[in-house]
């Protein structure tokens, strides 16, 4: 069962508020989304605000699209910093830039 408290923790950071982020995506591959096998395999809950949090709360993962007006590495680091700030006990934070949208 999903712990509502953990869901609230994971939802807390609004990644779309980070300058340069234009979209946030489910970081799991389609097969995991379709059959949820991938999520089970890594012991994660359904993503909240497109952030996957492992059952132990140790791993957070997200995928983003960024604007070309802001350097993608800076945006990715800012998102990682936000996740670390809101989840200081995290052992691993994964941020993947999947699209750089030319404005």
């Amino acid at each position, binding site marked *: 069962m999903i712990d509502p408290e953990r869901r609230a923790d994971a939802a807390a950071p609004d990644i779309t508020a980070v300058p340069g982020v234009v*979209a946030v*995506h489910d970081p799991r*591959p*389609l097969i995991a989304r*379709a059959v949820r096998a991938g999520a089970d395999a890594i012991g994660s809950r359904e993503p909240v605000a497109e952030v996957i949090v492992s059952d132990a709360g140790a791993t957070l993962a997200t*995928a983003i*699209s*960024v604007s*070309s007006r802001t*350097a*993608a*590495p800076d945006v*990715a*680091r800012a998102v*990682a910093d936000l996740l*670390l700030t809101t989840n200081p006990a*995290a*052992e*691993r*934070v*994964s*941020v*993947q*830039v*999947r*699209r*750089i*949208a*030319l404005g």
Partner: protein
Amino acid sequence: MTDPSAHRLDCGKTVDEISDYLEAGRTPFDPDIETCPECLNTLDALSRAGRLSRELLDADARALPEPSAGWFEGVMTAVRAEMRAGRSIPISHPDPRVDASVTEGAVHALIRATGDRVRGVYVGRSEIIGDVEQPGAPISIGLTASVAWGVDIRAAADGVRTAVAAALATHTELDVRAIDVEIHDVHRPTPPEERS
């Protein structure tokens, strides 16, 4: 026989499905495509190729050469290959707990979009050569392109090289040592009002 999975993006959509969606005017709205980064990258690339195709039908330009017969198919093939997420290109972070990266597909899309923005140029294929997953590894970029009739080919190639180098320096931490641009085709001029 062509392997159908070779035309499938990581999200499960095929490039042909996305092409059909584009041709239908992006209606009815498909939230799976419109929220998927790889699908959106593909839509962008196909939109630009489609624009070139329409430009070639422009009455004022009919007397001028078209790209070679296989050019559009080559672009489609390249898009199919490039738009998958591919390898993860690392982004540095001072905290060792952070694993940040940009996908190879996102970088291919960036290269293609940046090259297409150079006046008179349409990118055919792009290649990222080297161990991109190893920080600091030397990387080279290979590009093929078609250039509009009347455009200085050397200037166009230089423009692509400069624009792509700037884009990669801004959006990746790749150690790009070379950007090789090969002009494979010459096409009809691009009406200025139709370029974005």
